[in-house]
């Protein structure tokens, strides 16, 4: 509260605007100090887990920041600094495992990832032997994902067209709701569904196609959602202009609406492909796995990249050769998916100005 008299001259009285503040470098110094202390305590106390070092450092950082700020700047500023610190710590805490995940996959995967690895199957090699490759799994993944895309994209596209261009009333509402719900179906449940109806009831065998059907179920809602968003971006004047020329509605959709939003739709489809390419659970139930090359997705068990990773890990009883192969396959899979993502985003960026006009 200022009790200063209201004079015209600048008062020398203590300012109400200035507050005692920690210097700008304070957070960095505290952070560096906490990390040092965390490592020190970790070393001295013989704590072998780096996770604990990190936790000690972050708790120290939060405490010191709060106490210093409370002392120098007051309670409100201390709370504000505390919140800022917590948010930063949350961010760093999350970054660490994610960086580690990428780092481990690259570092360990690069060991056996070479031309031979990409062009050979496991053949009759035992899981514990050195050598072998993922050729059969790559073929399996490409075929299964391709088939799933062939099934899911037309259905997804048409459903989105229905919802945006025709949909109103109860049916559209129900479809919208269930598309949302379908996005959340666990992949293993989709696998169980195809298992129950295709394998147990119709008596068909394991095959790439069976897996592809489950993948298609997982892919459809994603395609519907992204296509819907894109179609909604097409300005109504375009549709009206075409209809006003006497073009029938279905040709308007095919010749005007879809081409306008093609870039966005392609992006959405590729992101959906990227998502199902890494699915393991339904493939495990329906494609079964196969160390040999089987190029026919409609007959007999196949391999697939994610399934290969799982089986190298789970069936090899800790053999280092198998673990190396698992990491290399994981790296291949991540590269594949990131490429799809990057290309998809590239298309989105490249096409964006055109749809905006």
């Amino acid at each position: 509260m200022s009790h200063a008299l209201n004079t015209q001259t600048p008062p020398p009285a203590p300012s109400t605007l200035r507050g005692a503040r920690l210097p700008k470098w304070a957070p960095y110094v505290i952070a560096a100090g906490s990390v040092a202390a965390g490592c020190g305590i970790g070393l001295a106390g013989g704590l072998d887990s780096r996770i604990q070092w990190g936790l000690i450092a972050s708790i120290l950082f939060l405490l010191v920041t709060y106490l210093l700020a409370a002392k120098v700047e007051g309670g409100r500023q201390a709370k504000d600094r505390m919140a800022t610190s917590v948010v930063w710590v949350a961010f760093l805490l999350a970054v660490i495992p994610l960086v580690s995940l990428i780092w481990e996959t690259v570092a360990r995967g690069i060991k056996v990832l070479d031309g031979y690895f990409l062009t050979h199957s496991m053949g009759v090699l035992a899981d514990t032997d050195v050598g072998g490759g993922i050729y059969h799994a790559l073929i399996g993944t490409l075929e299964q994902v391709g088939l799933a895309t062939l099934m899911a994209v037309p259905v997804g596209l048409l459903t989105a067209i229905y919802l945006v261009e025709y949909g109103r009333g109860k049916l559209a509402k129900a479809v919208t709701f269930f598309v949302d719900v379908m996005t959340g179906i666990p992949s293993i449940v989709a696998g169980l569904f195809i298992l129950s109806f295709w394998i147990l009831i119709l008596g068909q065998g394991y095959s790439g196609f069976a897996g592809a059907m489950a993948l298609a179920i997982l892919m459809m809602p994603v395609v519907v959602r992204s296509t819907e968003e894109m179609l909604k971006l097409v300005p109504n004047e375009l549709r009206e202009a075409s209809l006003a020329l006497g073009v029938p509605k279905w040709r308007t959709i095919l010749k005007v609406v879809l081409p306008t939003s093609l870039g966005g739709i392609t992006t959405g489809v590729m992101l959906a492909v990227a998502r199902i390419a890494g699915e393991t659970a339904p493939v495990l139930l329906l494609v079964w796995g196969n160390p040999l090359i089987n190029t026919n997705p409609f007959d007999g068990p196949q391999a697939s990249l994610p399934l290969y990773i799982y089986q190298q890990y789970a069936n090899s009883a800790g053999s280092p050769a198998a673990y190396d192969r698992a990491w290399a396959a994981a790296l291949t899979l991540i590269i594949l998916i990131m490429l799809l993502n990057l290309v998809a985003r590239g298309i989105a960026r490249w096409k964006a100005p055109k749809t905006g006009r």
Partner: protein
Amino acid sequence: MAKRIDVGGLTAYYGSHKAIEDISMTVEPRSVTAFIGPSGCGKSTFLRTLNRMHEVTPGGRVEGKVLLDGEDLYASAVDPVNVRRTIGMVFQRPNPFPTMSIFDNVAAGLKLNGNYKKSELADVVEKSLRGANLWNEVKDRLNKPGSGLSGGQQQRLCIARAIAVEPQVLLMDEPCSALDPISTLAIEDLIGELKERFTIVIVTHNMQQAARVSDRTAFFNLAAVGQPGRLIEIDDTERIFSNPSVQATEDYISGRFG
């Protein structure tokens, strides 16, 4: 309570775009100063530099001095949080916190500081609501959400919220532009009462309003679209509206452009 503002050579940017250039003026305590001028001339931007709200917008940056009774708001040791506490602001659209009751809205600023007593709080809320000419309309429903009030009432609630922390200066950014004529009249009457206690700066689109409520008027203009806005002149309101010293001001006031 009221303090005087001296602005010297103030220039404000949005990123690389210069929004206002080289503005100097003095705002007298216990008076109402109105800012008028065509859209985009930077009068709202200038207003927001007076309580350091401009730097909140992405890319917002300010050069120059704003002295509050001689103390520079942009000095490096100054905490913008304290500045905004000392200089209250009322916005174009009424913006009571939607999740808070009427009482909590008025008390929001006080509660931030923490050191208050329950009984004091109730007194301050009543005093502020009376100060904003809203008490009689809401005294029976202080625990209802503020968003249930009419637009004019909401704006007066926002004024009550701003004066509850006893600021030195009250900035108003087109406070009536979203309101109907009757609510506008109520706010204008209120401004007349508030100037007994506060230094008031009001941005308005409405020249009649400037003429009705203000003691002094500042006219802002820009040379062309894309150019920075400048202060053309500031003078007693009567003089600005009867006999301005700059031709552009007369053209604007007589409706020849803008």
